[in-house]
């Protein structure tokens, strides 16, 4: 059973077709890359997968369940976690609170149990806090537990976002340009980190990146989008030498050997 199956996803905004006939089947444990020049429709595709946009045509299947018409939070509950292209943290909340919000959807205690702080709820809350601390130490943010999220430097905000997404206990993790704004060293560290968490949490990951260098190292399979159309799919080495892909990127980045 595949983890994710996108079947001819198409979305039109007014007269503009932002993404057309996007198809992919992702198996468990894969690390797939989605690349393409700016404006190619990568984030739009993510938005269709996570329920932010309802596609004009096509379907999305998670573990062979049709999730195309489901609400965003329902899809998250079913196992898709994501980060955003422009970091969207809960800036006014503390670092650890940000992560704990991610655990809320799996809360078993009822509303009244939570309000009256019953022992059952208190235990669960303790557990959530412990798990959040562990996730924070994964991303090396445990020392900043009580800091206001908005006050963190950019790179750390990005890592926090990943920790938050992990708190939702996803099976499929969608990362939208996680290395944006990072220097080459930071990007490399991040990519190592992504591989590490993939193994540790047994995730399937789809990664959007604009920077090809970053993605070539860790993705076993890459899809290339240009103007909403999938122009290539294959192993990194194939993609690198694909003339269509080179043409699409010409003018942006020609040097990625």
């Amino acid at each position: 059973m595949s983890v994710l199956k996108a079947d001819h996803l198409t979305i039109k905004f007014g007269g503009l077709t932002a993404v057309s006939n996007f198809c992919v089947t992702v198996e468990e444990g894969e690390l797939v890359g989605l690349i393409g020049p700016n404006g190619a429709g990568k984030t739009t595709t993510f938005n269709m997968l996570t329920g932010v946009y309802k596609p004009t045509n096509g379907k999305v299947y998670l573990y062979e369940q049709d999730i195309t018409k489901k609400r965003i939070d329902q899809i998250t509950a079913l196992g898709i976690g994501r980060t955003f292209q422009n970091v969207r943290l809960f800036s006014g909340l503390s670092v650890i609170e940000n992560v704990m919000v991610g655990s809320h959807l799996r809360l078993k205690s009822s509303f009244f149990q939570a309000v009256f702080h019953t022992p059952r709820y208190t235990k669960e809350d303790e557990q959530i806090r412990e798990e959040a601390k562990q996730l924070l130490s994964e991303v090396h943010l445990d020392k900043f537990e009580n800091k206001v999220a908005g006050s963190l430097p950019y790179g750390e905000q990005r890592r926090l976002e990943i920790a938050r997404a992990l708190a939702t206990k996803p099976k499929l993790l969608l990362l939208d340009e996680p290395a944006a704004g990072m220097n080459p060293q930071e990007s490399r560290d991040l990519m190592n980190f992504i591989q590490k968490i993939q193994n540790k949490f047994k995730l399937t990951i789809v990664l959007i990146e604009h920077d090809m260098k970053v993605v070539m190292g860790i993705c076993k399979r890459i899809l290339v989008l240009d103007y909403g159309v999938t122009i290539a799919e294959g192993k990194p080495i194939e993609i690198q030498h694909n003339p269509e892909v080179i043409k699409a990127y010409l003018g942006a980045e020609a040097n990625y050997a």
Partner: protein
Amino acid sequence: MKKVKKKEKDYFLFFLKIIAILIVVIFVFIAQRNFDAYVIRILTLCGIYVILGVSLNLINGFTGQFSLGHAGFMSIGAYVSALLYMSPELKEVNYFITPLIWPFSVIQIPFFISVIAGGIIAALVGFLVGAPCLRLKGDYLAIVTFGFSEIIRIIFNNLQSITNGPLGLKGLPSYTNLWWSWGAAIFTIYFISNLINSSYGRALKSIREDEAAAEAMGVNLFYHKGLAFVVGAFFAGIGGALLGSLIMTIDPNTFSVVMTFQIIVIVIVGGLGSITGTVIVATIFAILMEFLRVFESPMNFFGTKLPGIPGMRMLIFSIILMVVILFFKRGLMGGKEFSLKQFIKIFSREDRVAKEGS
């Protein structure tokens, strides 16, 4: 080591809360015996404003849904409870133009239950109001909630056979006293601050911070926004019910937009998202309102007679509101709660500075 420390801290805080409640209880006990009726009435009003302020803060401050509909919920709480605790004879006296419909005309239920019922009906309406507001942004939400509040007022003004229309209900028995008012206030603070400090509270705050991100993290917007409205409306209904019995007369215009604005002032000045701030400002507000009444009647100022200026109280409050909005954007408490740690920090910092100075 850390775990042990945390447990100790928890017990300490719990102990502190119990002490705080005991202080209030003792204070109420002493006040009931020794203060005169006028002062008691003001203190009772303080408690009611605390309930109204904290419940509004839940919706507007913590969940970030700027609702202007609070007066409507209060009104429902006041009317429903009055219809239940008024005696049939009192009802007959009031509804002399259009008789009250059955079964209300014959029902009479103890005060406590009536107030709860008022809260529950208000909560129901809170749900009906909150539900469509799910997808509205800031200003539009404010307007729609205001609209609902006005619609409630207008309906109550016209349903002679149920609410007695513009005549209102007079001569309501005065059940509300310091115990009811502050008892309910303590329960409100307890309930809502526990809610805020729970996982549900974090979910509500995440909605305030970034709705789209919250949804992506699995927070069901409809459920949680609805929750905020329902709980907020419930306590507003309780507050309205208690107020009704305190001032002993209600009519549809008692709970007008002016009342909503007053509560909004309290919440903004105290800080959106700070329960401590709301409690402090609500108490001050009720007291100040009475104190400023002095300006509204003629007075003797060092021998010269000054005429009273009606409306001065509200004008002063509106000025305070504007000053806070323009200069203290985050309110009195800066949006934070009173925390023992912060309090202690202030003293230790001063200590350090003193040491460095010498």
